[in-house]
């Protein structure tokens, strides 16, 4: 059998074999050279200087390795933290959007903060200031909501502090009334006359509320933290809404 060296594959394989053999021979030569040098080392470096230089290189390398290790650990922890955070945000968002109780809790939390801010601004109103002070100082009004905005010229007419409800009636000089009731009732127990009335869904302190206008009376009903609020008056809608928005919890 004759070998056809014009065949490309054969030629390449033969080339590889020759060069590999060349490499192996070279390795043998280097090893022989090393053995010869070992037997007859007569050239000596400035060992101290060379040792110091190489030790410096090794120290640099060790420092770089430590830094790299720390960086890798940090990257690893960051990845886990990022995944955890994304999962937490995703789960929270899903829960917030699908579970009513959580959503309400979240909004209430935000509104509590907003109420703190509202307190500061409304208390500066010179017309309602003295009425608010009276409500704040009333020792019978504890653990309930009180308004921090009172429409102009309105004063406290009556406070009815019952077992499960507190009603505050405000009245101005022209005998206009504003009723504010807060009661620990469930939504289903609360009866509202909406016959021939205009109703609208609005937002009070970020919570869904019902506005009912019948004849000249405007009523606003909503629920917060298990308390049902009922505000009604013949005042302008804007005044009533401003009053509703100003309600704040008093310890």
């Amino acid at each position, binding site marked *: 059998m004759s070998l056809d060296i014009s065949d490309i594959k054969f030629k390449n394989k033969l080339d590889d074999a020759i060069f590999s053999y060349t490499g*192996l*021979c070279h*390795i043998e030569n*280097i090893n022989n*050279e090393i053995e010869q*040098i070992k037997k007859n080392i007569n050239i000596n470096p400035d060992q101290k200087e060379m040792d110091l230089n190489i030790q410096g290189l*090794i120290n640099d*390398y060790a420092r770089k*390795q*430590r830094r790299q290790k720390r960086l890798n650990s940090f990257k690893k922890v960051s990845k886990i933290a990022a995944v955890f955070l994304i999962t937490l945000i995703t789960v929270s968002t899903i829960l917030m959007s699908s579970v009513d109780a959580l959503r309400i809790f979240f909004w209430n939390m935000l509104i509590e903060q907003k109420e703190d801010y509202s307190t500061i601004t409304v208390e500066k109103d010179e017309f309602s200031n003295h009425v608010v002070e009276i409500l704040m100082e009333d020792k019978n009004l504890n653990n309930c909501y009180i308004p921090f905005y009172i429409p102009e010229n309105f004063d406290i007419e009556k406070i009815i502090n019952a077992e499960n409800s507190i009603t505050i009636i405000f009245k101005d000089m022209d005998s206009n009334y504003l009723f504010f009731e807060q009661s620990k009732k469930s939504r289903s127990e609360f009866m509202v006359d909406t016959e021939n009335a205009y109703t609208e869904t609005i937002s009070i302190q970020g919570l869904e509320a019902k506005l009912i206008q019948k004849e000249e009376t405007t009523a606003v009903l909503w629920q917060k933290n298990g308390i049902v609020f009922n505000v009604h008056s013949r005042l302008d809608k804007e005044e009533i809404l401003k009053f509703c928005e100003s309600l704040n919890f008093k310890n």
Partner: protein
Amino acid sequence: MNDYSIKKIEDLYLKYNKILYTIAYRILNNHQWAQDAVQATFVKIIENIAKIGDVDCNKTKVFIVIICRNISINIYNKHKRSSVLPIEKFDEITPDYSFCLEEELIGLEGLSLLKEKINMLYEPYADIITLRYIFDYSEKEISKILDITEQNVRVRLSRAKKSLMKLLREDKGVDVV
């Protein structure tokens, strides 16, 4: 892993520093340059520590000797640029034979003759053939180990092959003009 690498570098230094220094000094004939060459060799060893296995194995010895020799040649060329023939210029005095190594080999009487010729091959050329065909490094890896460009690796490898062929042809009494 970190401590293991550092231990390996320290062991390599303790075991081979005098041998590397001797190899470098033989090329450079200058103590300071030879020390620089050993230091530069260890920079390369540190960069390629993952490629180095057992400290005592033949492959490791050959690998670090190849690095040291090539670094020493680079240093020599740098300092004696005017008087030395750079390795890349070697080809200019090498006639451009039509390249067919197999034909030359078949004409030789067995592997012993080939081995004889390999021993005569210019060492940096034998080094690059060893790195490519025994260590199986890519051109990119070789370029990093020897501190030359990938283009230079290709050129040097090609010249190494041509040089080997030239040696084989010389044996057959071909005139080189």
